[in-house]
């Protein structure tokens, strides 16, 4: 069994190394026809840029994409600079340099990866998946009978912020930076999933398709790990199955299939303000222009965010979204599970959390309000602040850096819910409902707590669960995502996630610390 595990790990690492090294192989040549048709389709008027590329880039063979990217982006920047100086605004190309470069480099790749997509898919995804499963599945036997299996977590360099953790951290952060800001460097990786994308939506894959596919794959593999680890705990099993379903069906397959039928790409379970560009004018326009279905999507998205979400939070707590439906939550609960104990439990962290997450919520609301104001009035700024700038900075700081690079990249050092805890505006919004108007709470079982600290240790949201449990107090916290792990790891059966009457949800449970009633009353009155 242990040998299978080791072999699996080896295969996985080989897959990962090949995956990573693909960035450094292949040849690139931008052909005349590719370039012309692209320029035409975009209607560029930047002669300087077009000339520069035609003269210096087209037809030339590059041995790596970095030089090609640098030639394209500098051509773009030079041209733009000149036009901006001359105030010829219509000739400026407003694209982000690396996304324009991505569009040109993607069709320009040549070489073994492009020619052997199937083979390389197997060598990367295939080996990775097989290796990971070989590493994970023997745990059915190796971990012993069903039950809580946290042995050695704080002794392993992978899960105690040891060097393996830091390595994973660097890898993840680099991957996200490439994905969000330098997609033109990873076109070879995108090629791996081209055939799958074509069979789903009919289009070639984009870096977002690669990300979506990778996301689902990782969630499934790590979901299997969850099923094994928590096979004694039905709440965990059902919850994990639910996030997998919503991710694969709603976030990945349905949008791709919609595109195949020429309908807007739409994730029915995504909600504003997490889906921060839902009310952006291009989105509203594209939905309105897509006929009845588009209008339905617009209405659904709005009702979902503003009415359905808080109502369901009232009945079940925000867990129904955060740990049963949401994709970010889904990744956190699968890929992120090995890191849940690394969240900071200190009072200070809680303070930072409250400031940060509510600021993001306010930011999202202001930005959306401005967006709608602009949409309806046509005025593009308010109090000297441009709507576009707000949108840009939100997208860059919150949408990319916070939710992606930090939110996921920091799993191995700050725990698996960095984004959900400190950044997600939807979580903040649902948290307010959960804290003040909801039937959900974690009930503390009278006086049974022995203050051991397992619950706090494994709370991914950094809630000091023990602080409540040892006082016989129920846990009603805005940030609790109802993952149920505190209840699972408690060795004394002290915690239960419940939806009950609102009345008496927060009060301390007087009889039950074990002393006689009178004394408990006195203690409470003081």
């Amino acid at each position, binding site marked *: 069994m242990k040998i299978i595990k080791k072999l699996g790990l080896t295969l996985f690492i080989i897959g990962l190394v090949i995956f990573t090294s693909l960035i450094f192989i292949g040849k690139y040549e931008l052909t005349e026809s590719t370039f012309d048709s692209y320029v035409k389709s975009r209607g560029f008027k930047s002669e300087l840029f077009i000339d520069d590329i035609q003269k210096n880039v087209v037809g030339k063979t590059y041995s790596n994409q970095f030089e090609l990217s640098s030639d394209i982006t500098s051509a773009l920047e030079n041209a733009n600079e000149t036009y901006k100086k001359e105030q010829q605004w219509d000739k400026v190309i407003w694209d982000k340099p690396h996304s324009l470069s991505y569009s040109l480099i993607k069709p320009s790749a040549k070489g073994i990866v492009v020619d052997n997509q199937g083979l390389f898919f197997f060598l990367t995804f295939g080996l990775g998946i097989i290796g990971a499963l070989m590493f994970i599945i023997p745990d059915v036997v190796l971990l*012993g*009978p069903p*039950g*809580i299996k*946290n*042995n*050695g*977590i*704080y*002794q*392993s360099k992978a899960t*105690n912020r040891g060097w393996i953790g830091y390595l994973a951290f660097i890898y993840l952060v680099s991957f996200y930076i490439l994905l969000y800001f330098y997609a033109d460097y990873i076109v070879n990786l995108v090629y791996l999933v081209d055939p799958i994308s074509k069979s789903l939506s009919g289009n070639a894959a984009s870096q977002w398709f690669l990300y979506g596919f990778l996301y689902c794959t990782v969630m499934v593999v790590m979901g299997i790990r969850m099923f094994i680890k928590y096979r*004694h*705990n*039905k*709440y965990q099993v*059902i919850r994990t199955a639910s996030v997998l379903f919503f991710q694969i069906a709603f976030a990945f397959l349905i949008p791709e299939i919609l595109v195949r039928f020429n309908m807007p790409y739409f994730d029915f379970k995504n909600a504003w303000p997490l889906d921060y560009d839902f009310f952006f004018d291009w989105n509203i326009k594209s939905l309105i222009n897509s006929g009845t279905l588009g209008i339905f999507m617009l209405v659904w998205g709005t009702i979902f965010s503003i009415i359905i979400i808080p109502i369901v939070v009232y009945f079940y707590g925000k867990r129904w979204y955060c740990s049963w439906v949401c994709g970010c939550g889904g990744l956190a609960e699968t890929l992120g599970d090995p890191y849940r*104990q690394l969240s900071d*439990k*200190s*009072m200070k962290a809680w303070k930072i959390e409250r400031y940060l997450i509510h600021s993001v919520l306010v930011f999202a609301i202001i930005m959306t309000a401005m967006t709608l104001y602009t949409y309806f009035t046509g005025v593009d700024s308010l109090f000297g602040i441009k709507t576009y700038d707000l949108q840009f900075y939100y997208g860059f700081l919150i949408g990319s850096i916070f939710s992606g690079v930090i939110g996921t990249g920091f799993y191995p050092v700050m725990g698996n819910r960095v984004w959900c805890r400190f950044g997600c505006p939807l979580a903040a919004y649902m948290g307010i409902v959960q804290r003040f108007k909801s039937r959900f709470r974690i*009930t503390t*079982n*009278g*006086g*049974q707590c*022995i*203050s*051991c*600290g*397992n619950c*706090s*240790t494994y709370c991914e949201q950094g809630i000091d669960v*023990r602080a409540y449990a*040892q006082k016989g107090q129920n846990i009603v916290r805005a940030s609790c995502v109802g993952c*149920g792990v505190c*209840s*699972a790891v408690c*060795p*004394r*059966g002290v915690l*239960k*996630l419940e939806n009950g*009457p609102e*009345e*008496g949800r927060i*009060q301390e*449970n*007087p*009889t*039950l*610390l*074990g*002393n*006689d009633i*009178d*004394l408990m009353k*006195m*203690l409470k009155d*003081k």
Partner: protein
Amino acid sequence: MKHVVIIGNGISGVTTARHVRKMSDQKITIISDETDYFFSRTALMYVYMGHMPFKNTQPYENWFWEKNRINLIKNRVEKIDTDSKKLLLKNGEEITYDKLVLATGSKPNKFGWKGQDLDGVSGMYSKQDLDAIEKYTKNIKRAVIVGGGLIGIELAEMLISREIPVTFLVRETSFWNNVLPKQDSQLITNHVKSHHVDLKLDTELREIIPDENGRVKAVLTSKGETIDCQFVGLTAGVSPNIDFVRDSKIECNRGILINRHLETNIPDVYAIGDCAEQENAIGRRRPIEQVWYTGRMMGETLAQTLCGNRRQYNPGHWFNSAKFFDIEYQTYGWVTARIQEDEQDYYWESSCGQKAIHLVFDKNDKSFVGINTFGIRLRHEMFDRWLNEKKSIEHVLEYLKDANFDPEFYKQHEEEIINGFNQKFNANIQPKKKSWKRIFTTF
């Protein structure tokens, strides 16, 4: 300003300090020689098993003590002079108190076995013990644990988690059968064996044999068997840690003797928690109760007295809990190893052999006396209420669903349990659906 001095920074001492601070402005000092800060003794096993770093066993952050003006001294108290109200510390310092709280906890029992102080032998009580175990169990081939109580089984789980083969010497004929009824004890015995513990029942330790370097090499059992091992864990119970108190005028038996107000024979000196012994046992409770909850409850009560509100210690209904490898155990009310004459019992076990319930009730008036539950979590609050209201066994079973505390979606067994009861006692109890209203009324 009065000076309250507390010896011992365990749950008893710290609970006292916290509540005194809540209610008054007295000067508070806690002295302990074990650790800088209060930690949860019950969590020591999780540190060894790698579930938690030691830091996480501390329920309060380090700034808590200063903020609440609770003075911490890390030192050992060597002498108590109750006439001049002075303590002598190991470092020579003297401390004067107005009120003294003894909360010194326990120490592992050692019954004068030959070799009990060898290198490679340790109890499992203190942080120092944990460090010693960590050191002694590196790369060893076998460990022997002596004494089959709750701490022994925790130690077994710890060692197994590091894949160290364990031989477990247990004096009883079935695990913990001096506390658990036969069936319950059998259930746990089977479970322990399923975790590959080499359980030797009805076996005691004779002596521990050293190698040439004075380290443990083997043990000799009462059955004449020699077992090679490199570590021996002594977990044959604990007793009050009060050697230094015995030289003072404070009256002791096995523990420090106290009355129902937690007062010792000397005015202004109190004792609570593991180290205290009730002059007269309270109800069916034992005079010395070495459990977490007792320490906490006594601390809460004593704080009232220390703040001028003299209180009698009045524990509510007995409850306790433990975990045996993967099986959680809770108990409410009284289920004794041997069911009493005037009592009847009903035992139900699930087909998987991992879940069981043992109910005890009065033979005559059928009132509910107590329950043991294994693998099924039950609501403390409901049982406390039923015990207060002296509900009948029929009532308890009828409303058993209200008391279920398992996580959502777990398989529920109430119907099975009740059917079994109906059959055995020719009754006709129908379970009622769970009701939030019932669970939350009475307050």
